[in-house]
């Protein structure tokens, strides 16, 4: 335990000696990532050239990462309200009412740039950061998901990145004791130079005790808790706002180092303090560390703040104010306490062996004043810096979707068994068991297993501790759809999350998003961003599925090669009676299979085209159309029949279409099925028409008549049973063969030496 007192004996370095207080020039501003125009605005706000420390504050607060300057115009389109939304975007995480007086707080965030430079620590600290966003609000974290995208498996870096990222996520999540319950993992050459590591955390808090970052009460103490501040991660937020070139690895010092043990202590200490009445406001020190946390708290409260930087607990000697303000050392929190509550708080943090220091006070000056051994080293106005934060309406061009696929140009299907085996065993279609078995997905004792199956279904199911209700959680995006037609792709990401939740019986409540794109300074990339967000907004509106939190990650390109547009959607739903939950595994033979939704046989942009025929990009045609009214109708219907207990298993149809979905259901349980399909064609078997589900049921006639009444297309598809997948009572493929293909690829790839 370091107290502030110990530091007063140190030899003082007077402020004028510090480079930090020297006036800056425009060249300094540009070196720190500001444009000439932004620098001029900073001079205007200060009434003088800001000194180098002050310039650092402008630079990070106006970075793309912190200011959303290229994206905020478009983020405003998102619907953010619903009767069950407690807190929408703008706080550390969004919060929705999940009944029983409880709220779910959740958010997704990227750690793409750091993970490319240093995969283990980059991914680990991504998990740590998103957990802090959730417990900062007073919510105990109960689940982690992650959406990973890597380059071509044959690219020399990919295997190393997969291993490092997965170990990093596991290393952090396993230690803090929060289960990693779900996610996705895809490969595409477009991510060769920019893997995506998006982590989502979900926590549960009493609905009437959610903490926010809004400072109140001039004179209240500003308290620093958690780990000490070191020199790691300085200017991480600025790094995350530029593109990479071949020198990317030289930026390794800007990657933070995580300590999940300290995080675990911080969770327990913060939640213990939050159970008292001592806290006014709290904010984690994430991107841009102490700068953005103190700045945002004061700004949200319309107040000023004065911080004595020499009181900040430091890990190394000789640190300067600039380094302290811009460090992104992990596992740190800033809080505003009620007057006189310092001792209560200090006792709790001492018990958990964490640093605790009163480093400043709130003021009514509206200024951010930083002192160093009693001398003022920075003095900037908060309101103008926040209000004048740049916002760009960047030029964009609309993506023109490719022409419809000429089906006549496709090679004939040939043997459906070969195509199915290939799809199930491809890098993208194969089982991701190798990944999730390295994550503790069961700790906390609430991860549900339905019909013998835990991870690997449409959504992860997590019991709300101490209740008979459950959360359903999913993360979804189909980047190849987004590339071909951003608007349809954006809609589809939201619609698929909606389907994945509905397929378990859960009511979809809200989403968080993680918008990963290339450089917004290229009009065609900005066009992708605009199209995807438009599509997402339309889908959220139509499906009553608002956005409550999110993160934007731009500049995901290396040497001018941008990633596929990847707007990841993290969906959350609730099951009022967890005993009614279903998943994808057939629980028994002799059940009838019913296909819900309409099949036109859309082949454009399908996994079949990519993995079986090798057609991608403009050659692959447009993605399937998302019909939002139909999505809503079919999803509502599926939830209603699950709620009535008519459904034994359910799976939505996505990558690979009908036959892949049926095979996944069979593989999940080890019980086969026999399907009757009138037209054995690639379009019917592997088309990716949207809004479809397969249900297994012992009450087929009740399901069909309910579908008829609800005006939902539905038809018998087959029956469960046996140990093979059989088409039209003819040819079949054994589950053993399918399993070998499905389970084989990732372990053999990831565990091999070269």
């Amino acid at each position, binding site marked *: 335990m370091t107290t502030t007192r110990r530091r007063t004996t140190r030899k003082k370095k007077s402020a004028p000696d510090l480079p930090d207080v020297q006036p800056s020039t425009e060249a300094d501003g540009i070196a720190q990532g500001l444009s000439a125009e932004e620098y001029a605005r900073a001079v205007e706000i200060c009434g003088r050239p800001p000194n180098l420390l002050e310039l650092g504050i402008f630079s990070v607060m106006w970075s793309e990462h912190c200011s959303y300057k290229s994206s905020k115009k478009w983020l405003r389109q998102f619907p953010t309200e619903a009767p069950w939304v407690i807190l929408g975007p703008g706080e550390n995480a969004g919060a929705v009412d999940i009944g029983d007086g409880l709220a779910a707080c959740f958010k997704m965030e990227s750690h793409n740039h750091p993970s490319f430079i240093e995969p283990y620590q980059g991914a680990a600290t991504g998990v740590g950061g998103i957990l802090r966003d959730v417990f900062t609000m007073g919510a105990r974290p109960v689940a982690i998901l992650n959406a990973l995208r890597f380059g071509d498996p044959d690219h020399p870096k990919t295997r190393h990145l997969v291993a490092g990222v997965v*170990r990093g996520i*596991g*290393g952090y999540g*396993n*230690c*803090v*004791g929060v289960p990693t319950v779900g996610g996705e993992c895809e490969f595409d050459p477009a991510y060769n130079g920019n893997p995506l590591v998006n982590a989502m955390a979900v926590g549960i808090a009493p609905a009437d005790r959610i903490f926010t970052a809004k400072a109140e009460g001039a004179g209240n103490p500003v308290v620093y808790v958690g780990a000490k501040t070191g020199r790691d991660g300085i200017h991480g937020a600025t790094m995350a706002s530029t593109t990479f070139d071949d020198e990317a690895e030289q930026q390794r010092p800007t990657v933070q180092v995580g*300590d*999940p*043990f*300290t995080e*675990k*202590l911080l969770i327990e200490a913060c939640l213990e303090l939050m159970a008292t009445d001592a806290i006014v406001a709290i904010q984690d020190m994430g991107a841009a560390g102490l700068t953005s946390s103190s700045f945002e708290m004061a700004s949200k409260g319309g107040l000023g703040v004065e911080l004595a930087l020499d009181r900040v607990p430091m890990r190394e000697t000789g640190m300067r104010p600039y380094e302290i303000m811009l460090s992104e050392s992990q596992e740190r929190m800033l809080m505003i306490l009620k007057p006189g509550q310092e001792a209560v708080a200090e006792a709790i943090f001492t018990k*958990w*062996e964490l640093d605790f220091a009163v480093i400043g006070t709130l003021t009514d000056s509206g200024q951010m004043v930083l002192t160093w051994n009693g001398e003022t080293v920075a003095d900037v106005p908060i309101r103008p810096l926040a209000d004048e934060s740049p916002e760009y309406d960047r030029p964009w061009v609309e993506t023109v979707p490719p022409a419809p696929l000429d089906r006549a140009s496709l090679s004939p299907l040939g043997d459906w068994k070969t195509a199915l085996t290939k799809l199930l065993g491809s890098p993208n279609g194969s089982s991701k068991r190798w990944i*999730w*078995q*390295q*994550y*503790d*997905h*069961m*700790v*906390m*004792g609430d*991860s*549900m*297993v339905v019909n*013998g199956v*835990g991870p690997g279904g449409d959504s992860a199911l997590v*019991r709300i501790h101490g209740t008979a209700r459950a959360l359903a959680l999913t993360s979804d995006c189909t980047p190849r759809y987004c590339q071909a037609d951003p608007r349809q792709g954006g809609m589809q990401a939201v619609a698929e999350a909606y389907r994945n939740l509905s397929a378990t019986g859960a009511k979809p409540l809200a989403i968080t998003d993680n918008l990963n794109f290339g450089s917004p300074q290229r009009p065609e990339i900005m066009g992708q961003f605009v199209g995807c967000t438009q599509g997402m907004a339309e889908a959220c509106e139509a499906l009553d599925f608002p956005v409550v939190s999110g993160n934007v990650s731009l500049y995901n390109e290396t040497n001018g090669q941008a990633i596929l547009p990847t707007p990841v959607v993290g969906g959350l739903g609730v099951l009022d009676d*967890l005993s009614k939950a279903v998943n994808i595994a057939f629980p028994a033979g002799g059940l009838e299979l019913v296909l819900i939704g309409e099949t036109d046989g859309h082949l454009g942009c399908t996994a079949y085209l990519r993995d079986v025929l090798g057609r991608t990009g403009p050659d692959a045609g447009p993605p399937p159309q998302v019909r939002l009214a139909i999505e809503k109708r079919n999803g509502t219907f599926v939830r209603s029949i699950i709620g009535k207990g008519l459904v034994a298993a359910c799976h939505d149809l996505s990558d690979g279409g009908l036959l892949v979905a049926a095979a996944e259901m069979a593989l999940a349980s080890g019980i086969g099925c026999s399907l009757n399909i009138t037209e054995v064609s690639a379009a019917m078997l592997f088309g990716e028409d949207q809004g479809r589900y397969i249900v297994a049921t012992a009450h087929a006639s009740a399901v069909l008549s309910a579908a008829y009444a609800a005006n939902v297309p539905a038809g018998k598809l087959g029956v469960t049973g046996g140990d093979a997948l059989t088409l039209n009572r003819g040819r079949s493929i054994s589950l053993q063969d399918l399993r070998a293909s499905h389970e084989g690829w990732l372990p053999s790839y990831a565990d091999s030496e070269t």
Partner: protein
Amino acid sequence: MSLRAGVVVFPGSNCDRDGAVALAMVAGRKPKMIWHQDTKLPPLDLIFLPGGFSYGDYLRCGAIAAHSPVMREVVAAAKKGVAVLGVCNGFHLLTESGLLPGALIRNAGLKFVCRSVDLTVERTDTPYAGRYTQGQSLSIPVAHGDGNYTADADTLARLNDEGRVAFRYRDNPNGSADNIAGIYNETGRVLGMMPHPERAVEPMLGSSDGLGLFQSIAEVLA
């Protein structure tokens, strides 16, 4: 008399709540949560050392926790015959503190592994296994990076000869010698095991096979 159980909480423990929930299910009352700096234990029938990453496990799993104030009390209590159950990191603690022989090293596959495994019940005449039958197969999850049980040949021979192997893996997930998943001390009152019985206490979790262990404890020790 209902079971008086205590769950020791170290900084970094993360299965303490799960253990407490399972114990409360069979004891009919909540166990006492015991902080690692406590120097005096209340009267207890069973001490549960939970899984997790005590003190971060940066040195060696359980190495630092084994020297914590509370572990002196736990060792003393065990020597007086109080039953001690260590699961996962709790098993590390039992070997580190000398209550059980051998050591747990990095998994043979060098990766953390979290999945259900099948175990064989090796004996039933202990406070932990009375509800099971000899040779019964149990499905119970593991979640660890360092669960590879190892000991010198003499120790292994002794454990096998004296019937001190509690459970063996049917499908060894970590390379443990002789497929050892859990072992008893000489009296059978101290049990260390890598699989998590507290994660297999209701069908919703995928298996109830761990419940028998807690029911046995409640029956015999209360």
